[in-house]
C-alpha cells in the first residue's frame, strides 16, 4: 500500500465512520464503485474502530507488565547454583529476583539474588555488579553480608547473601509495643549501620522500614543496596542519579531525590528522619496514598510536615496501643520533634551534617542531655516564607505601602484643613467680639445707644482695631474698611492715617507685591484723588493696577475697579487722551463680568464726558 492509497482509505473511513451503521455500506458501495479492495480495506478499519479492543487501546504500562510477567521468575533447570539448592522465591527487587536457597553441604539458608534479563543491556549488568561490589565492601553486623558471587552459563550474574529472617522495623515496634527508648535504640543501630556504609562512601538511597529487618533476637539488618550509590565513583553520569530517583520509594525520598538534585549523605539522613518520624508518630509525615506521582513530588518538595508529637496525638481520635507506649514528657517531645525535623529538613544543608551527628543527638536524648540541633529560628522561617511566596509577599508589601501612603497623605491633608478651619473660626470669633464691642461701646448692659452716629462707631472701631494686635491680618482689614468709611464721610485725615496703616500692615504681612497691598494702594489712591492730590493719586493707583495686572486674569472685578479708579483720576487731571482707553478698558471689564448697571452707567457717563471734552478741545494733539 502506498501513501495515496492510504489517504484514500482514510478519507472514506472518516466519512463513513460518522454515519449510522446501516448507511455505511450503502455509502461505501457508491463511493468505491468497482474497487472491491478499497471497500474491504475501509470496512476492516470500520470494524476495528467499532471494536476498539486492540493492544493500542490499553495502557503501555499494562502491556509492559503483562509482557514482563509472561516469563517471570526463571530458574535453573537443575534448580542449583553451585553448592546452593533453590528452595523458593522470596521476591523481586528492582531488576533482580531473590530466592531462598539452602547450602547443600552445610545446610544453612541463604538468599540468592539473580539479575533478571541480564541480556537487556550492559548498563543493567553494571548496576548489578556495582551492588555486589558495594555489598562486598561493607562488613558490618547490621548489614546483610555478601557470601558468594558467580555467573550462569548464559551470562546471568547472581550473588549469595545472608538470609535474614525478620520483620520490618516499624512492624516489629508495633507488634512488640516498644517504648520510645526501645525504638530510639533500634533506630540508633540502624544509623550505625548506615554510618558504616557512609564511611565506605556508599549511599543507600532507599532506606525504608521494609529494607530494615529486625530478627527475633532484636538485632537489625540493613538490606537492599540495589540502588545504592558509590560516592566519587567513576560513573557519575546523570542516568545514575535519575535511575535512583525513579526507583526510589517516594514516601522516604528526600526532596533533592525528587527534584533530581545532588545526592549525598544528607539524602540518607533525610530518609532516616522519615523512619524516625514513623517510629515516633506511627504515621508517615505525608499521606501519599491516592496521589499521582506528580502530586506526591510536589507535596514532598514543598509541604512542611506536621510535628511528630502533634501527629502522634492525632491518631484519628482513638488512642491506639502505639500512642500508649509512646508516652513522653512535653519537653522530651519537643526534643524529639527537633531531632526528627532537623533530619528531615528540606534544605540538605540544614539537616544533620552526617549520620554521626544524628547518632550523637539520639545519645543526648537517651542520656537526657540537651540536643545539638536547634529548631529553625523565626528569622530563618520568615526568610524562607518570603522566598517561597516571593510574589505574594511582594504584592502584600505593595498593598500595605499604598494603604500606608494614603493614610499618611490624608492625615496630613486633614490636619492642614482642620488647622485652617480652626484659624478661620478664631478669626470669625474675634471679628464677632469686635462688632459687639463696636455697637455696645464696651457697656454690655446698656446695649447700643439710640443716637449712635456713624462717626462714633468709626471712632470706636478704630480704637478697637488698634488693640487687635493678636491678629494683624484682621487688624489691617479693619483699618482698610474703617478708612474707606471715613473717606466716604469726608473725614480725610482719619481716613489717611488708617489707610496708610492698612497699607503698611498689609505690606508687612503679605509682601509689597500682593493683592492685599494692591487693594490698599488703590484705596489710598482714591483718597488722594478726593484730597485733590492728583499726582499722588495717579502714582498710587497705577502702582496698584500694575500689581493687579501681574497677578490676576485679564477679566477680574478688582482689575475693573482699579482701572475705573485710574480713569477717574486721569479725567480729574484733565488727561482725557489717556483716560479714554483706560475707561474703555474698565467698561469692557465690567460688562464682561455683568456688573450691575449703576456702576457701569456712572463710568459710561464719565467716559462720555471725557470723550466730549476731548472732542471739543481745540489743541487735540497736545
Amino acid at each position, binding site marked *: 500500500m*502506498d501513501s495515496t492509497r492510504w489517504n484514500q482509505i*482514510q478519507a472514506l473511513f472518516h466519512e463513513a465512520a460518522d454515519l449510522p451503521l446501516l448507511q455505511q455500506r450503502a455509502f461505501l458501495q457508491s463511493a468505491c464503485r468497482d474497487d472491491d479492495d478499497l471497500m474491504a480495506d475501509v470496512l*476492516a478499519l470500520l470494524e476495528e474502530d467499532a471494536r476498539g479492543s486492540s493492544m493500542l487501546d490499553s495502557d503501555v504500562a499494562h502491556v509492559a507488565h503483562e509482557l514482563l510477567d509472561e516469563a517471570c521468575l526463571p*530458574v535453573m*533447570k537443575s534448580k542449583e547454583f553451585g553448592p546452593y539448592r533453590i528452595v523458593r522465591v522470596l*521476591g523481586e527487587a528492582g531488576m533482580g529476583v531473590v530466592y531462598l536457597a539452602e547450602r547443600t553441604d552445610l545446610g544453612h539458608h541463604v538468599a540468592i539474588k539473580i539479575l533478571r534479563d541480564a541480556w537487556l543491556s550492559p548498563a543493567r549488568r553494571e548496576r548489578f555488579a556495582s551492588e555486589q561490589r558495594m555489598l562486598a565492601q561493607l562488613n558490618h553486623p547490621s548489614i546483610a553480608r555478601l557470601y558468594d558471587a558467580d555467573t550462569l552459563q548464559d551470562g546471568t550474574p547472581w550473588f549469595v547473601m545472608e538470609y535474614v529472617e525478620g520483620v520490618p522495623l516499624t512492624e516489629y515496634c508495633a507488634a512488640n509495643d516498644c517504648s520510645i527508648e526501645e525504638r530510639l535504640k533500634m533506630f540508633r543501630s540502624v544509623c550505625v549501620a548506615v554510618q558504616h556504609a557512609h564511611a565506605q562512601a556508599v549511599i543507600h538511597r532507599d532506606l525504608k522500614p521494609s529494607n530494615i529487618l529486625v530478627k527475633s533476637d532484636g538485632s537489625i539488618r540493613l538490606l537492599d543496596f540495589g540502588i545504592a550509590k558509590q560516592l566519587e565513583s567513576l560513573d557519575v553520569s546523570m542516568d545514575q542519579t*535519575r*535511575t535512583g530517583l525513579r526507583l526510589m520509594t*517516594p514516601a522516604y525520598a528526600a526532596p533533592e531525590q525528587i527534584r533530581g538534585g545532588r545526592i549525598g549523605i544528607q539524602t540518607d539522613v533525610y530518609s532516616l528522619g522519615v523512619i524516625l518520624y514513623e517510629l515516633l508518630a506511627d504515621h508517615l509525615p505525608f499521606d501519599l496514598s491516592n496521589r499521582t506521582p506528580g502530586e506526591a513530588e510536589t507535596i514532598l518538595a514543598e509541604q512542611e510536615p506536621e510535628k511528630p508529637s502533634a501527629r502522634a496525638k492525632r491518631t484519628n481520635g482513638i488512642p491506639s496501643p502505639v500512642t500508649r507506649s509512646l508516652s513522653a514528657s512535653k519537653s522530651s517531645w519537643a526534643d524529639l520533634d527537633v531531632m526528627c525535623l532537623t533530619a528531615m529538613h528540606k534544605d540538605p544543608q540544614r539537616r544533620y551534617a552526617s549520620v554521626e551527628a544524628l547518632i550523637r543527638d539520639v545519645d543526648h536524648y537517651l542520656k537526657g542531655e540537651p540536643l545539638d540541633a536547634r529548631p529553625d529560628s523565626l528569622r530563618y522561617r520568615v526568610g524562607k516564607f518570603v522566598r517561597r511566596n516571593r510574589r505574594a509577599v511582594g504584592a502584600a508589601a505593595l498593598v500595605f505601602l499604598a494603604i500606608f501612603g494614603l493614610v499618611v497623605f490624608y492625615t496630613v491633608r486633614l490636619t492642614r484643613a482642620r488647622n485652617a478651619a480652626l484659624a478661620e473660626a478664631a478669626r470669625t470669633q474675634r471679628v464677632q467680639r469686635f462688632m459687639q464691642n463696636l455697637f455696645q461701646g464696651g457697656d454690655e448692659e446698656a446695649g447700643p445707644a439710640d443716637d449712635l452716629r456713624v462717626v462714633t462707631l468709626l471712632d470706636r472701631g478704630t480704637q478697637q482695631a488698634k488693640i487687635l494686635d493678636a491678629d494683624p491680618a484682621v487688624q489691617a482689614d479693619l483699618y482698610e474698611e474703617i478708612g474707606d468709611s471715613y473717606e466716604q464721610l469726608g473725614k480725610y485725615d482719619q481716613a489717611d492715617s488708617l489707610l496708610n496703616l492698612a497699607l503698611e500692615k498689609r505690606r508687612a504681612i503679605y509682601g509689597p507685591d500682593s493683592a492685599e497691598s494692591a487693594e490698599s494702594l488703590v484705596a489710598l489712591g482714591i483718597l488722594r484723588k478726593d484730597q485733590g492730590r492728583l499726582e499722588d493719586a495717579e502714582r498710587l493707583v497705577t502702582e496698584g493696577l500694575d500689581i493687579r495686572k501681574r497677578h490676576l486674569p485679564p477679566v477680574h472685578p478688582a482689575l475693573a475697579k482699579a482701572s475705573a479708579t485710574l480713569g477717574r483720576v486721569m479725567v480729574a487731571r484733565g488727561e482725557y487722551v489717556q483716560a479714554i482707553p483706560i475707561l474703555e478698558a474698565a467698561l469692557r471689564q465690567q460688562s464682561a463680568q455683568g456688573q450691575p448697571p449703576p456702576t457701569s452707567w456712572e463710568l459710561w457717563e464719565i467716559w462720555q464726558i471725557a470723550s466730549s471734552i476731548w472732542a471739543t478741545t481745540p489743541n487735540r494733539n497736545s
Partner: protein
Amino acid sequence: MASSVRRSDPRATLNPTALVNEAWLKLGNSPRIASTSPLHFKRIAARAMRQVLIEAARHRNANKRGAGAVFVTFDDRLDRRPSYAKELLDLDRALDELAQIHPRQAMMVESRFFGGLDTPEIAQLLEVSEATILRDWRAAKAWLAHKLRQAR
C-alpha cells in the same frame, strides 16, 4: 513475613518497574539528553520505551520457541494466554510499515502509546492541530488493529 525482599511495598506510589529502569538506563547513554526540551525528551523517552519493550518481547519470544534452553518456567503461565510478546513484535512491524506510508502517524502512535504523550503535546510536537491528531489516531489505530488481527 520472612523474606528479605518484599514483592511490592503497598505504600509506594511510584511503583518501580524493570521496564522504566531499563528505559532510563538507555536514555542515559544518549549524551545530548540534558540539553533537550521536556517535550522532545518525552519523544526520545517514547522511542527508548519502544526499543526496550520490543527487545524484551523478542527475547521472550525466542525463549518460548525453545532457543534459551537454560531457562524453564516455574509454571505454565506462558501457555495459558495469547502472547503479548508476539503481539508487540507484530505491532513493531506494523508501525514500521506505517512509517513508510505515513511517517507522521507512525511517530504519533509511538509517542502516544509508548511514551504516554497526550494529544496537546503530540500536536505541539508534530506541529499540527489537535483535531488532526485525533483523526490520525483513530484511523491509524484501526489500521494497526487490523494488521495485528491479520498477523494472529
